[in-house]
């Protein structure tokens, strides 16, 4: 009985105290909130250990059992503990692993930065190829999306301004009465991009944001009131 109701009471009580502390930030609730925040920080620190344990255990088992891809697990475990070792060594020897002359910083500059940057840069190729295949004028909505995407892409880079300068010149040649300088300053692509980002895009984003917040509140209430109990594995 207590196994089930105990955590529910604990969650309800803690949430109630935190809500009170938020609206009444005076003693004793204000101090209580500070204490809770410190506990939260400590607990979140320990989650790193939990992650380390889970990751190391999973891959060590794979290595011991010689499961498929065990060599990659070996690489992972070696890198993990190698990084940990150099981090601790740098901490003891240089007061911080982030000291510029520390061995950890060497590892960071010449391994972590290039590896992560390469991984992220590779995405550009896939996105590029996917965009080429996905942006097709199949219907009105897809066409509008394509036009908006092109406007944003052109408005976001200096080449957009150069293209617009060329178009302005062309318009001026066809209609000599138009003022070329005013046309150039109009910067159609950049102006369209600014408008698209600030108005339709932000409106949609705000709607999604409000929806997410309402969903978050609803889920929090379900957890506080004990309706949602999945965290108890029930």
């Amino acid at each position: 009985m207590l196994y089930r109701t105990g955590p529910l009471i604990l969650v309800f009580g803690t949430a109630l105290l935190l809500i009170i502390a938020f609206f009444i930030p005076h003693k004793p609730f204000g101090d209580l909130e500070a204490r809770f925040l410190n506990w939260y920080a400590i607990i979140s620190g320990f989650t790193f250990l939990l992650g380390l344990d889970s990751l190391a255990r999973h891959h060590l088992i794979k290595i011991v059992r010689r499961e498929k891809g065990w060599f990659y697990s070996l690489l992972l475990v070696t890198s993990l503990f190698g990084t940990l070792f150099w981090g601790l060594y740098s901490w003891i020897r240089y007061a911080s692993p982030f000291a510029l002359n520390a061995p950890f910083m060497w590892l960071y500059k010449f391994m972590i930065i290039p590896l992560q940057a390469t991984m992220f840069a590779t995405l550009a190729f896939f996105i590029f190829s996917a965009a080429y295949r996905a942006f097709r004028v199949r219907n009105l909505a897809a066409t509008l999306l394509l036009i908006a995407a092109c406007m944003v892409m052109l408005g976001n880079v200096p080449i957009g301004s150069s293209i617009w300068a060329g178009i302005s010149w062309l318009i001026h040649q066809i209609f000599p009465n138009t003022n070329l300088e005013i046309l150039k300053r109009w910067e159609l692509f950049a102006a369209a991009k600014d408008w698209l980002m600030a108005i339709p895009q932000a409106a949609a984003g705000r709607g999604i944001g409000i929806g997410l917040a309402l969903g978050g509140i609803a889920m929090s209430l379900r957890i506080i009131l004990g309706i949602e109990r999945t965290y108890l594995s029930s």
Partner: protein
Amino acid sequence: MKPTFLPVWRTLASIDRRIIYLLLTIVVVLPLIIHPKIKVRVSEPVRAAFESIEKLPQNSVVMISIDFDPSSAPEVQPMLIAILRHCFKKNLKVILTGQLALGLPLGEIALNQVSGEYNKVYGRDYVNIGYRPGSTALMVGIGREIRDFFKTDYRGVPLDSFEFMRRVHNYHDIALLVTLAHGAVADAWIQYAGARFNQKIIVGCTGVNAPNMYQYLSAQQITGLIGGLQGASEYETLVEKPGAATLGMPAQSTAHALLIILLIIGNIGFILSKKKI
């Protein structure tokens, strides 16, 4: 009657991805080798971010949070360097912190580079307080007392041993918070430090994240926005010190242009391949 496909149009609509990869490589690498000169247009959100720092009186405290890691460094690191240059030029005091442990060394590298350019001294002009776990709890906690979470700097030196840090206790003492983020951390700073403690915030983020920030910008929950490599190059233009972002813009320009050309070709092929003969 079934539509008849013309092979040429069909080819245009389905160019081999290896050709696309090759073209992309060429249009990105060539401008990086040639370094063509480009003129950067400064957008309003970036100008607003610049003005937020420009208007601060001397010795004001600016807290910069490194909320990105090396994967986003090519886009966000130039922003950090440009902002540090601006802060040091204006004689502002800088506190560096971060919500991603793996991002902080990037901050240390940038500080080391820029402080030398302006003869700034660690502890007198800037402090790196490092990383602490806690995320949103930490953001709320700083509103009460920064020492509850950061008793020392990243090397273990007590905060009170730095003169300007003795007057910094919470958000009231921080004139501006700059979050350089590649994920949802910027949202959290806005929601916790901004909404609850009225902290003035500017956001620098990757191009992918920038659209999510416009709603905060138009609601004036942030006072400026620097989005992606373009935003970084605009900020570099404003501080009159072109750097990595300005160097990278021609490559980004040509890549965007190539994609638009490919989209046009692909769509012409798509439309014509569907036409009945």
